[in-house]
């Protein structure tokens, strides 16, 4: 078997807070292979974000071992291995869409001419050609979110991490973007980590669904999806789909103590 | 040319007309001096400016200068253009005041910021407490104008013959409605506008020479100003940067100030000096100065200037 891109072994993370320690991750084991599309699902506070941040080297586990391509996440981050997309598009309002996409390129000191080319390329990729000169507020929420994905794609990061990127959008727009993410994934063959609250979204997108549960945050189920790579939206009405969704829901329900 | 900076004790007005005339008429230039005149203001203490090195020579009243000297600011009088005092207490007749005996239990307006010493010394002499105790006067810190009298907030206020008194008159109160007490007449006159420098600078012969020329030129200016009050007032207006001064006020001020410099060439009269010191020392329980000052004046400069 080929070596996993992301390898978490007994990862543990405890936050020290004013009200005492918070056990955000407990004994998390997970292997993600190159080209996987992994969704993380689970109730609020179960540590989805925290785990994603660990992968990106933004948070350091207090126990266990986590490697990315064999090196530490910290080092991987320094070598610019990650594209990170947050729930809110988080575009800079004082920069145009093109300017926003250029931001990481400027920081990473890509040559000027190359910057322009890359901006054009990713704008096309997310279907925003011609919107480069617009400011974020001149775009709809869905378009903004696509721009923020373009920003994460611009510098060819190997791993794309998305933390509830479509949480703020309405269902129809969300459907559209889900299709688009799948298309992107197929086109670039990136390894993708994706946090969501939506069961259909998780099932529709992923090759692997990680169900988590809180207090302390841990993995309760890992479901490998048997769905084909090619997924029209209608796949969501197939029995296989419903079957997996059911399993996810059960997993969630089990870990939920509300 | 030698540079000289003069710090005035108040804003540009005819009270300082002589210096402005000397500057405008080129007397300073003729004496090979390059003079800068700095007006004063409510928050400008000339002695401080002198100490801080912001000026070479200042115009100040002797009580305040001597008090400063006792407080560790060694200033020395080098010339005394104003021979007579222009200070008085102006009272409304309707307040019932006819003489100093009527002061107790009345409210009197007084200038502070170093201008309060003549008043305190006078009251000391009269034996009238000013600290608000029984049988004393209520002292009001007068602002920059005569409103307290007009608004009847005070029975009497401090005025100068050349300025505030006329504002009271201008305001429509006739002289008959007023009772005035000139410090001169009450025998408590203290010397007013004189020129002072720091004691240590007098060890420098070149500086002394410069001051001699400065005093000489200034006195020429005063002489001319006294003889040509209209023109002097115009010159003052010329230098007034606020543009708020008026010809009427300044001509009158110049005319009145001329009376105060009458009979002097600018040299300090030692008799006047001793009278002032005695008056300041004798202020009852709370004298303005506590011991006879030593070396508070020099006649060297005027001797050199006027020979």
């Amino acid at each position, binding site marked *: 078997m080929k070596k996993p891109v992301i390898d978490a072994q007994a990862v543990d993370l405890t936050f020290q807070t004013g009200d005492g320690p918070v056990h955000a991750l407990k004994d998390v084991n997970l292997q993600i292979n190159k080209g996987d599309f992994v969704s993380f699902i689970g109730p609020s506070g179960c540590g989805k974000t925290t785990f994603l*941040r660990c992968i*990106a080297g*933004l948070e350091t586990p207090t126990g266990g071992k986590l490697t990315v391509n064999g090196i530490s996440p910290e080092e991987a*981050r*320094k*070598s*610019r291995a*990650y*594209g*990170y997309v*947050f729930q*809110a598009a*988080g575009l*800079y*309002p*004082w*920069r*145009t869409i093109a300017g926003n996409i250029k*931001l*990481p390129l*400027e*920081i*990473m000191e890509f040559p000027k001419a190359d910057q322009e080319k890359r901006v054009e390329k990713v704008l096309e990729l997310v279907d925003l050609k011609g919107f480069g000169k617009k*400011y*974020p*507020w001149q775009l709809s929420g869905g378009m903004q979110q696509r721009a923020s994905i373009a920003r994460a794609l611009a*510098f060819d990061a190997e791993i794309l991490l998305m933390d509830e990127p479509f949480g703020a959008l309405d269902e129809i727009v969300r459907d559209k973007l889900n299709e688009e993410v799948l298309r992107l994934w197929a086109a670039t063959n990136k390894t993708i980590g994706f946090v969501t609250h939506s069961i259909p979204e998780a099932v529709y997108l992923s090759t692997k669904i990680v169900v988590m549960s809180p207090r302390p945050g841990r993995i309760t189920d890992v479901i490998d999806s048997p769905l084909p790579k090619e997924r029209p939206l209608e796949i969501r009405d197939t029995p296989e789909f419903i079957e997996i969704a059911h399993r996810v829901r059960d997993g969630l329900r089990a870990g939920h103590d509300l | 040319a030698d540079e000289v900076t003069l710090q005035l004790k108040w*804003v*540009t007005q005819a009270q300082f007309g002589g210096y402005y005339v000397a500057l405008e008429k080129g007397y300073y230039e003729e004496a090979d001096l390059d003079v800068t005149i700095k*007006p004063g*203001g*409510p*928050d*400008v*203490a000339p002695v*401080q*400016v002198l*100490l*801080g*090195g*912001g*000026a070479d020579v200042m115009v100040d009243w002797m009580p305040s200068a001597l008090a400063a000297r006792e407080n560790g600011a060694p200033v020395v009088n080098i010339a005394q253009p104003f021979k007579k005092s222009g200070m008085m207490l102006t009272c409304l007749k309707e307040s019932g005041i006819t003489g100093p005996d009527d002061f107790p239990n009345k409210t009197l307006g007084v200038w502070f910021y170093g201008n309060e010493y003549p008043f305190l010394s006078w009251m000391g002499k009269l034996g009238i407490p000013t600290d608000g105790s029984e049988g004393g006067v209520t002292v009001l810190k007068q*602002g*920059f*104008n*005569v*409103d307290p009298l007009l608004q009847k907030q005070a029975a009497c206020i401090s005025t100068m013959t050349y300025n505030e008194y006329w*504002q009271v008159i*201008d*305001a*429509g109160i*006739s002289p008959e*409605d007023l009772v005035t007490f000139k410090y001169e007449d009450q025998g408590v006159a203290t010397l007013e506008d004189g020129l002072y420098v720091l004691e240590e600078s007098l060890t420098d012969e070149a500086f002394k020479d410069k001051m001699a020329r400065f005093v000489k030129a200034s006195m020429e200016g005063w002489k001319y100003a006294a003889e040509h009050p209209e023109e002097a007032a115009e010159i003052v207006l010329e230098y007034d*940067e*606020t*543009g*708020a*001064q*008026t010809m009427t*006020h300044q001509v009158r001020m110049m005319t009145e100030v001329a009376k105060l410099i009458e009979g002097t060439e600018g040299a300090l009269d030692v008799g006047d000096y001793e009278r002032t010191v005695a008056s300041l020392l004798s202020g009852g329980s709370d004298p303005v100065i506590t011991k006879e000052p030593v070396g508070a004046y020099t006649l060297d400069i005027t001797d050199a200037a006027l020979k």
Partner: protein
Amino acid sequence: MNKIVPVLTVLAVLIVIWYAAAVKMNSTWTFDQAERAGTEVSFSELVTDTMSQTRPLLPAPHQIATELWKTTVEKKITSKRSMIYQGSITLKTTLLGFGFGIVIGIALATVIVLSRVGRLTLMPWAIISQTIPIVALAPIIVVLSNAAGTGTLMVPKAIIAAYLSFYPVLVSMVKGLSSPDQMQLDLLKTYGASQRDVFWKLRLPSSMPYFFASLKVSVAAAFVGAVVAELSTSAIAGLGARMLIGSQFGEPMIMWAALFAAAILAAILIFLVGGFEKLARYMMGGRAV
């Protein structure tokens, strides 16, 4: 504009109240004078007299307007008697102090935001600094800048203006520079950005709306500082000095006119800064409002 009618109405009412108050307040003097002269005053005499005293307790609006007209329109701008000339002096002080204030405010805010020790140490003192009445320090500032050899009073005046105007900038910039949330900071971290990148590409641009919002308050503070400085440290020139001279020589009209000129100038300044703010927002990709 749905404001014009109400504003005019309110102004009209205020002016009527003002005239009534002027008659009332100035009548004491009229009656006093009549008593001294031993004559009676009729109501119409009372009204005319209270509208035309040279030293009224409260000048009638038209008296102030006349004085303003005389000292602006009827005077050459270069004349010292022109309110415009005097205003320009105050304006210079204000702008210089405002400039200092902005620089100091931003510099301190940067230190405070970037360093924990800076924040713990400087923030309380910034607050304390504003509780010291600057007028009390004015003489000291004058003397010290004299001692430091700055010939003109421009510098001490500007220092006083700056002292009042840096604070709003500081407070807003501290807010602004720390306005990027964890998510935005983390985003740059995933790019492997340096502290410098974070400051120039994120913190500074995000602070701009806060910065612009503080400018109006700050310029008003600088203006007050400039007037107070002219009024107290150096009755040499400027609107503040005119107020003082007006007060000293019992010329209420000069004083009131200077006061109104100051208010008009302040309003213009704030309006201009507001316009600049809008322009800057627009240039920074803001939504036109």
